[in-house]
């Protein structure tokens, strides 16, 4: 399942938190962030601050002191809960609309919010689980649907039309047929990816399954499941149209068997949920509607003989509205490009802004990396011109963070560098920087570099239409790939990048010629000695075990900048950007020793293996990466000839 999710992730179109949400995700990626840091990050967004404070007040029973600051909210709810809620809210604001025509984004969030509020209230009433945890788990319980709609807008539209009127479980079956993965699995993987608690991920994966199939869940996950199972029909009732609320009562009634609550208290709680849902809808700008009192709905359900029959098109929250016009492709008005200027020094920033504005760009500014990231995600500039060295998040980290998310991928990023940073340009290019200008900048040079970026941006916009088509094809291709058992870039046996990936990496590294001394590239080719004997004497199982073990050993011994791939058979290569032959030979020697001293056990097989290593460095005479590959290959051959288990370096000719 995780492989399939990784492929979805590779498309770059999975929903991800925006602005402050992203900053929070970054901050909390490590385990040692402080409550104050979190509170500070949240406070940089006033809207989010208000929502968090409201959240922490509504999660409490009446009579508890009302709080008014994020810091108090963190104290009351706990750091993790606040983090999770903030993430959820930032998703709501980032995905109000999208490209999947049959997916009703407003209704999706309306439903999610109703589930969240219902789950929170139920948790409080039943004292089953921490209310804020139930809230966030329910808010994200349908995120897999949003994800599939984002990654495969057209195919998901078709599917939604096909299954309109069927249940969420039927939708999931359709999803597996078309995408080889369903929205429950996607949601589970996404929650894990965002480091929400495992119990949340398990609950969103399992709540739609029959109760007897989920008895083995741990206590928290099981309770969350229960809450979701009751919250889901409540949300359906709340979202029902045309006075059809009571049609959904039977599903609710059967879910109620899971909990212990008397009827009067339940109806009061549900009316509370309805009111709170509308309230939250206003806060988050999510559409809601009013519903009759639940006691009344229950009464009508018991009177109506047709109550058991579900009206068509009422079960799935995202069924199509045939009258909805397809969304127009967004035509970007490009009279003026927007540029985000980032510098911690106020003088430099002011000059930068003045020069850019004089040139006719629409300029926004940020005084540090964190602020810049939030602003970039919020306002999506075409070009970012940033200082490199800044306290806190520097220009490189800013670039890395932007490149990780979809909208940041197309931005043209230009870094201002002082003399002392020039040695690190390779790192900067790796992080995804497009260009450099040295500081203090000469305005003419700076503006001509920005103009180069502008040409690129305009070109990108012109092909955006084609790109949308291409994206769709890519998404279809990804489906196809998932259907084929082999994945595109990973070697199935060892999980190392495969030959295809190896050739791409090598070619890209080969073509990249950076100025300065960092312009070096070396390659290590590795061939297992007498591997055929292993296969012949111990069987292919043992051979496979050797390959896997070897892959692990190699992976563990490499430097961060090096990439190891399996070419096929018993051949591996390591791409070493920034290394000369001597450096790569040292790495190869380390690998050689590591491999030779690692004992591999598999059945009768119980010994170490050795490898022959060929090292080659890129020289000016080499026309392409294939020449480099060839040189390394020759060096391996020499190592074999010279008696194996050794490193040979190709001559620098």
């Amino acid at each position, binding site marked *: 399942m995780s492989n399939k999710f990784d492929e979805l992730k590779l498309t770059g179109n999975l929903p991800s938190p925006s602005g402050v949400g992203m900053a929070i995700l970054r901050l909390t990626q490590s385990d040692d962030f402080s409550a104050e840091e979190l509170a500070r990050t949240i406070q940089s967004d006033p809207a989010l601050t208000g929502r968090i404070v409201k959240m922490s007040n509504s999660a409490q029973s009446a009579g508890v002191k009302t709080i008014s600051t994020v810091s108090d909210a963190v104290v009351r709810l706990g750091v993790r809960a606040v983090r999770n809620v903030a993430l959820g809210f930032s998703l709501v604001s980032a995905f109000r609309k999208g490209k999947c025509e049959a997916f009703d984004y407003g209704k999706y969030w309306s439903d999610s919010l109703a589930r969240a509020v219902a789950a929170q209230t139920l948790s409080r009433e039943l004292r089953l689980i921490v209310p804020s945890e139930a809230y966030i788990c329910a808010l994200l319980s349908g995120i897999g649907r949003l994800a599939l709609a984002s990654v495969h807008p057209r195919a998901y539209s078709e599917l939604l039309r096909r299954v309109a009127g069927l249940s969420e479980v039927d939708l999931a079956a359709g999803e597996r047929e078309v995408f080889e993965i369903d929205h429950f699995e996607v949601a589970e993987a996404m929650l894990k990816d965002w480091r929400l608690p495992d119990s949340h991920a398990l609950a969103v994966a399992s709540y739609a399954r029959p109760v007897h199939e989920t008895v083995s869940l741990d206590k928290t996950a099981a309770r969350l499941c229960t809450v979701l199972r009751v919250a889901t029909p409540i949300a359906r009732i709340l979202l029902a149209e045309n006075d059809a609320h009571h049609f959904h009562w039977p599903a609710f009634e059967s879910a109620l068997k899971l909990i212990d609550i008397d009827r009067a208290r339940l109806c009061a709680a549900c009316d509370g949920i309805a009111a709170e849902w509308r309230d939250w809808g206003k806060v988050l700008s999510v559409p809601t509607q009013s519903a009759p009192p639940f006691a009344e709905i229950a009464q009508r359900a018991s009177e109506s003989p047709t109550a058991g029959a579900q009206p068509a098109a009422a079960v799935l929250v995202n069924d199509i509205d045939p009258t909805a016009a397809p969304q127009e492709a967004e035509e970007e008005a490009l009279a003026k490009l927007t540029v985000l200027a980032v510098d911690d020094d106020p003088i430099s920033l002011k000059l930068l802004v003045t020069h850019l504005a004089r040139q006719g760009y629409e300029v926004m500014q940020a005084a540090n990396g964190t602020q810049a990231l939030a602003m970039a995600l919020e306002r999506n500039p075409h070009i970012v011109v940033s200082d490199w060295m800044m306290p806190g998040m520097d220009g490189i980290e800013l670039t890395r963070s932007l490149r990780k998310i979809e909208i940041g991928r197309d931005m043209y990023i230009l870094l201002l560098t002082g003399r002392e940073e020039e040695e690190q340009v390779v790192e900067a290019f790796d992080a995804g920087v497009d260009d450099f200008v040295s*500081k203090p900048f000469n305005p003419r040079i700076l503006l001509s570099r920005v103009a180069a970026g502008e040409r690129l941006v305009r070109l990108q916009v012109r092909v955006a239409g084609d790109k949308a088509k291409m994206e769709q094809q890519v998404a279809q291709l990804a489906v196809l790939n998932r259907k084929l058992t082999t994945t595109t870039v990973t070697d199935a046996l060892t999980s190392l990048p495969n030959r295809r990936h190896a050739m791409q990496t090598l070619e890209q590294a080969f073509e990249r010629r950076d100025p300065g001394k960092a312009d070096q590239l070396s390659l290590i080719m590795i061939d297992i000695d007498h591997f055929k004997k292993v296969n012949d004497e111990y069987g292919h199982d043992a051979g496979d075990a050797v390959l896997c073990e070897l892959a692990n050993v190699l992976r563990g011994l490499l430097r961060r900048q090096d990439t190891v791939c399996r070419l096929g058979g018993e051949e591996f290569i390591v791409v070493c950007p920034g290394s000369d032959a001597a450096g790569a030979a040292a790495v190869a020697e380390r690998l050689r020793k590591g491999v030779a001293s690692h004992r591999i056990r598999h059945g009768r097989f119980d010994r170490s293996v050795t490898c022959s290593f060929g090292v080659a460095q890129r020289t000016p005479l080499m026309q392409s990466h294939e020449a480099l590959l060839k040189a390394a290959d020759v060096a391996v051959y020499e190592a074999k000839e010279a008696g194996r288990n050794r490193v040979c370096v190709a001559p620098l000719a």
Partner: protein
Amino acid sequence: MNDQNPSDTSTEDVGTALDMSVVASLKELGGEDDPGLFTDLVETFLADTPQRVRAIETAARDADAEGLMKAAHGLKSSAANLGAARLSALCRELEKAGRGGALEGVDRMAARLVKEYAAAEKALRQASAT
């Protein structure tokens, strides 16, 4: 701090503290659209810098290499932007010293920086008044 020995700042130092071509280009940049640009920049600079100079002095005195590097880095680019070339060059040396941890003589450099800033301040005020 920079007011302690104003008499030390000779007229000659003030006269060469600024690269007047930078000043001219900044004034030209402001032009008719934003005639106050240069004055604004100078005011921002004069408001921020004493604190930075103090931070450099403190870091030099306490042999705080990282603090020295950071404070000097910040001042280096603003000084260069306004044409205070000597001040900027001095910051560059201090930054380098901080980066390399080679702190011998940084207190003397910091003392020179105080004087150099005093000269740059005077020159900037003059340039901004004309």
